[in-house]
């Protein structure tokens, strides 16, 4: 490992040192604002360093990590989302009494895990990143112990994530046994010579189960609604965006690395998972009255859409995945952000009914929430529309008609429940009152609105960037 390699790891190193400094600070004196300010500062520094290392890409660090344009784009997105989540958590925990400084330390560790995942190029880093992420998530989910369902959700996540991890490990072990290597590219070339033997197919199957659990694909999705409901809104936002995004990134890298789209068995398996996720997610979302559960089902469906990119096997697919992921993250953060802002700590504004008449109380929040929901539904003017367009285009180019058509059908189904929420906001309610927002809250909403409209109206900016870069090396 040379000096420049270490420099290229700057974002990861910054995020690794931050929790240590924060821990030491806390032992000296607890100060909520200082800790929040410091974590924001460190995230910004890490974000800046991503830009600084961008010209050097691609860099391979041993066979473990790879920093190419794909990783850099995802790193940037992950860190950017973390900044928003830190702001949300700050607002959310502001009126929470008790010890809340450690929350931000764990948040940092979780983001570190996610960042390792998006740069992983080897089973070891894949696994390390995933575990760092998951273990921090157990704690984050159960962090506010006195909330209803909080501990239940944490334990549920713990059990299910452990099962998923063991599947994943078993799969990795089988692949290692079959190919004798643990690096993605090594497995790819071994596969090309030997073909997909039953042993390897089993290994892939096991890994698919593990990844399916983490991405909450149907039929491994059962935990999602419960965990979303039990976790506090910022943490749920974290799971929906950063956690899923980074797992998807590593899955994409692995799948493209081994040219998985050439093997019929894998294609069939993933197609089934994708179609099931789309339909189940949207159909179950139809009857949800709990807004967080609704978003959970919506995220299941969206991950189903994103699976299309795995099967494209083209750079188009990768571009679509990145664009979709970015717009999905912005949008989802907006939706969860609004929940956290409307929540008083012990009881969250999580029922759709709680949103009743929001438009007449605070039009600004209602308009932002409508915008996010329309973006999730993929209506023009918003980021979601362009993202969906990109995805459909990539899908059709690779002749994935079944998937594209079920995406279209599902867009129509999903409209119904997004519209229902919007409808509720515009229904006048009996109670009156004005919801006030803090400066940080307005900042987050403004970023979300700008993001959604910018990607929706002037997408060429991002599209050109994605297009120009050779994404994976």
């Amino acid at each position: 490992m040379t000096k420049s390699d270490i420099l290229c790891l700057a974002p990861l190193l910054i995020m690794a040192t931050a929790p240590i400094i924060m821990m030491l600070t806390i032992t000296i004196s607890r100060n909520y604002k200082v800790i929040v300010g410091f974590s924001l500062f460190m995230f910004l520094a890490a974000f800046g360093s991503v830009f600084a290392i961008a010209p050097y890409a691609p860099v391979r660090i041993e066979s473990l990590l790879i920093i190419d344009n794909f990783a850099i784009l995802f790193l940037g997105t992950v860190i950017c989302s973390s900044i928003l989540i830190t702001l949300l958590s700050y607002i959310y925990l502001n009126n929470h009494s008790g010890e809340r400084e450690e929350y931000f330390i764990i948040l940092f560790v979780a983001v570190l895990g996610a960042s390792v995942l998006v740069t992983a190029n080897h089973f070891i880093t894949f696994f390390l990143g995933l575990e760092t992420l998951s273990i921090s998530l157990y704690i984050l989910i159960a962090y506010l112990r006195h909330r209803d369902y909080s501990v239940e959700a944490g334990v549920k996540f713990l059990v299910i994530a452990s099962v998923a991890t063991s599947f994943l490990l078993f799969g990795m072990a089988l692949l290692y046994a079959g190919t004798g290597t643990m690096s993605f590219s090594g497995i790819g070339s071994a596969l090309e010579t030997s073909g997909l033997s039953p042993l390897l197919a089993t290994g892939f199957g096991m890994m698919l189960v593990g990844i399916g659990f983490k991405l909450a694909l149907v039929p491994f999705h059962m935990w999602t609604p419960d965990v979303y409901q039990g976790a506090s809104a910022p943490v749920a936002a974290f799971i929906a965006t950063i956690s899923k995004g980074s797992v998807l990134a590593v899955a994409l890298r692995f799948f493209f690395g081994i040219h998985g789209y050439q093997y019929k068995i894998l294609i069939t398996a993933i197609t089934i998972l994708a179609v099931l996720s789309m339909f189940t997610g949207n159909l179950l979302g139809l009857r949800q009255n709990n807004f967080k559960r609704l978003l959970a089902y919506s995220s299941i469906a969206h991950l189903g859409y994103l699976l299309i990119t795995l099967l494209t096997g083209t750079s188009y697919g990768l571009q679509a995945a990145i664009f979709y992921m970015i717009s999905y993250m912005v949008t989802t953060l907006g939706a969860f952000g609004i929940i956290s802002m409307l929540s008083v700590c012990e009881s969250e504004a999580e029922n759709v009914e709680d949103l009743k008449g929001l438009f007449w109380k605070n039009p600004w929040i209602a308009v932002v929430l409508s915008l996010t929901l329309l973006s999730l539904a993929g209506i023009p003017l918003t980021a979601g529309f362009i993202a969906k367009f990109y995805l459909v285009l990539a899908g059709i180019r690779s002749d994935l008609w079944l998937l594209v058509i079920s995406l279209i059908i599902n867009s129509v189904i999903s409209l119904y429940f997004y519209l229902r929420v919007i409808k509720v906001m515009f229904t006048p309610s009996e109670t009156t009152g004005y919801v006030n927002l803090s400066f940080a809250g307005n900042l987050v909403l403004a970023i979300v609105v700008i993001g959604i409209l910018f990607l929706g109206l002037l997408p060429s900016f991002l599209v050109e960037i994605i297009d120009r870069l050779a994404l994976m090396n």
Partner: protein
Amino acid sequence: MAGGAIAWITGKWNPRFSRYISLASVITDLVLTIGMLGNNNSGQTWRIEYLYNWIPRFGIRIHLALDGLSLLMLLLTFFIGVLAILISWKEITKNTGFFHFNILWILAGITGVFLSLDLFLFYFFWEVMLIPMYFLIGIWGHENRIYASYKFFIFTQASGLLMFLAIIGLYLVHGLNTGIYSFDYMDMLGTYMSPNVEMILMCGFLAAFLVKLPVVPFHNWLPDAHTEAPTAGSLILAALMLKTGAYGLLRFVVPLFPNAAERFAPVGMLLGIIGILYGAKLAFAQTDLKRLVAYTSVNHMGFIVLGVFAFNELAYQGVIIQIIAHGISTGALFVIVGQLYERLHTRDINKMGGLWKQVPAMGGIGLVFVMASLGLPGLGNFVAEFLTLTGTFKSSVLFTCLASLGLIAATIYSIRIMQKVFYGKTNPGLKTHDLTIRESIVLGAMVIAIFVLGIFPQPVLNMAKPAILKTLHVMQISREAGKEPVVDVSRFVTDPDEYISDK
């Protein structure tokens, strides 16, 4: 033109002035458009053209252009827009700011649809006009508004997505064919496709346009949406939104898929006939006045479909006049129904009767539009239906005869409106007053318009002529080319079929 969008921001925060602001902005648009009438440099195809590279990566450009056809549509749009704002002056009392915001956005979306020459952009505007309409129905509608607004949105959205898929399909077929990936209408004209591909792609477009029109099997959303929407909403729906479907057929389906359109023509004409007869029958059976008027739209739109698939100049002239005349006459009927509802708080036709004595002015104007709707000579609809039928006669005698039956049916339901509402025994419980000045202005303008259209249709025909001829020209070319493909298709001819069929 989308300058209307700026007005709503101010309008939103000062609900009091929002009416004036929105009125002013739409009138400005109207004046601007009228100004363009004079600006006729006949040498070029497009009177005004605007280009901007939006997403060059995908060959998506903001390509707006105006020809005679679009100009006519725009005139109609802004004319109706002004009226829509005027008629809701009193009807809408809550949240006026947001109401006008929605109206202006719908108008902006419709304007965009009539102007865009980039298919992506076209779809974009196509969808933009839906959401505010959804709010319009959902927030300010009548009793059953929630149901109606969902139904409206999901019907139109689902069909729109099919069109979207077809647009992307066309884009890729064109790209593979020529190596130029572009969503531009002008580029896509004359794209060679194998017949099956052409048919499938055309069906995607048709889905969107036929649902919007609506043609009979897909007309289900219309009566609900019309009935539950506030008056301004019904007016815009009937007079403008349905017309985007007709415009789409003329502008996109026929020129882009000439061969498939020709093969589809008998089915299309049959659907038109069914629309004419079935719409008339249902209209006759309604007791809710607004629903009745809604079904007359189904009846009139049948003529449009019939004309579009007749593929000749006369029929197309008829279609264009029909688009405008129906916009005015049915729009006016909705306005009258709305005004009656404001006064009587009922739309039930059986509870009305003998209103002529109390509201002679409204009755008189009502008579004009009912007559227009049944196609009385001298009024716009007569010209339209006459031209359409004459044009269709050249293509199919049988269909023309059947369609003429529709005229008789239209007479029956139209007369029934007059009979039940304005004549007959006076219902003693009803007390009402005649038109106010504002209402007289609205209806008066419409009466003048329908008479002008009926007596001097020639300027309109002249304006639309280049566009019609161009469309027919494309048909002609492809008809000749159909025998021997002009493009070298050997490398592609097997591709598209596999492309579409799901492997």
